[in-house]
């Protein structure tokens, strides 16, 4: 039986192959939601849930699939899961649903879920598939919170505003006003500012990666450049 390196799965999905920062997928929900860190965290948490269930289901029905109809079946399952999540949250997590309600249908448009279903869950047993879904979801949440956090601090001078609405009153300590009397920077809150911030974060990730990577030995020729 094939051994699965779960550490590698998490490392890959969180950093080296992050769905947003490396694969540049799922940008539509990302830019729409991340005007603040709280919204990003909320959408990220629901996405984790949907990804775990979609990976599990798709991995379980994997032997039955045929190449001709696999994509419609993935889409059908993901859309159904998101709708169920929407209804269940509306009924039993109503306050949270009021904050995030608008964004939940956006999860269907998240090509990251379909991407993982196609490239991982449909080819692996259920446990690694679930782990991969979890790791990808955490990687996506990480990107949402980082981008949302930067945009919120620069755009309105706060961090995790309204977090108590999302997570309950005990989390109100998370709500920080970093720049009191700050007039705000509208551009960063608007979608165009989201693109600009995303570009800066991508550049920052590149810088970090090249800083931590040991410099290539002098003798190596150009053809030895890795392409991963």
């Amino acid at each position, binding site marked *: 039986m094939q051994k699965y390196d779960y550490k590698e799965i998490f490392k890959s999905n969180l950093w080296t192959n992050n769905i947003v920062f490396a694969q540049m997928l799922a940008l539509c929900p990302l830019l729409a939601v991340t*005007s603040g860190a709280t919204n990003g965290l909320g959408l990220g948490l629901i996405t984790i849930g949907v990804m775990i269930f979609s990976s599990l289901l798709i991995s379980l*029905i994997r*032997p*039955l*699939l*045929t190449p*001709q*109809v696999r994509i*419609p*079946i993935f889409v*059908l*399952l993901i859309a*159904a899961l998101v*709708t*169920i999540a929407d*209804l*269940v949250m*509306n*009924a*039993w997590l*109503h306050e949270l649903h*009021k904050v995030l309600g608008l964004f939940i249908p956006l999860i269907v448009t998240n090509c990251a879920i379909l991407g993982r279903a196609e490239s991982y869950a449909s080819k692996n047993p259920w446990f690694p598939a679930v782990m991969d879904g979890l790791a990808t979801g955490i990687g996506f949440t990480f990107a949402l919170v980082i981008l949302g956090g930067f945009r919120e601090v620069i755009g*309105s001078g706060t961090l995790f505003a309204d977090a108590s609405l999302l997570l309950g009153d005990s989390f109100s300590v998370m709500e920080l006003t970093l720049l009191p009397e700050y007039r*705000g920077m*509208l551009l960063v*809150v*608007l979608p165009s500012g989201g693109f600009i911030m995303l570009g800066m974060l991508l550049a920052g990730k590149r810088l970090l990666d090249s800083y931590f990577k040991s410099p290539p030995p002098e003798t190596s020729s150009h053809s030895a450049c890795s392409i991963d």
Partner: protein
Amino acid sequence: MSMNLDKMKQTLVYPALLMGSVSLLVCSLLLLTHNLTAQPIADRQREDLTKLMNQVLPSNAYDNQPLDQKYQEQIADKQFIFYRARKLGKVSAIILFTKTSGYSGDINMLVAIKENGELSGVRVLSHTETPGLGDDIELAKSDWILGFSGLSLGNPEPKGWAVKKDGGQFDAFTGATITPRAVVKGVYEILQLFKENKVFFLEIKDATPDTDTQKTL
């Protein structure tokens, strides 16, 4: 078994059957979830509506359950949803959903008007105005919207029903005149509509305090 399955997969009907059965499964799952959640969702929405109503109408203004009966009427070519608050059998106020065109799309509002034509309260329910500029119409961002309480068609005079820039009495926001202008206009129009249809809204002809008869236009 797996040999059989592989053989079946080659047939033309297999993908169709697979697609069909997955669709059937998904539909039944959705139906089940819908049935389980329909009642809780309706309860939650009723709670939300009660909270909203309490914001725009003091509880001593009525003695019935205004939300028990929802009215949906066509008035002046527009569809309106409203509720009648009653006290001692007479309509004491109406709570009405309305919308006005803002800077970028509709601004949905809830307006409560007392039977004497005075505004009891106005709240913005949802809007797509520019964040940071036009969203001061939300109570969460500023108390501008509270300034409507107690006003009526004669108070202030008609020319006062405009933002200060247009010679009226309402403050505009820095960098956003269109949004408050739209809200002022929307509220003023609703007050006019109420005045013109007062007989209908207050069920004045309906002498007997009968809550069962629903008037239709």
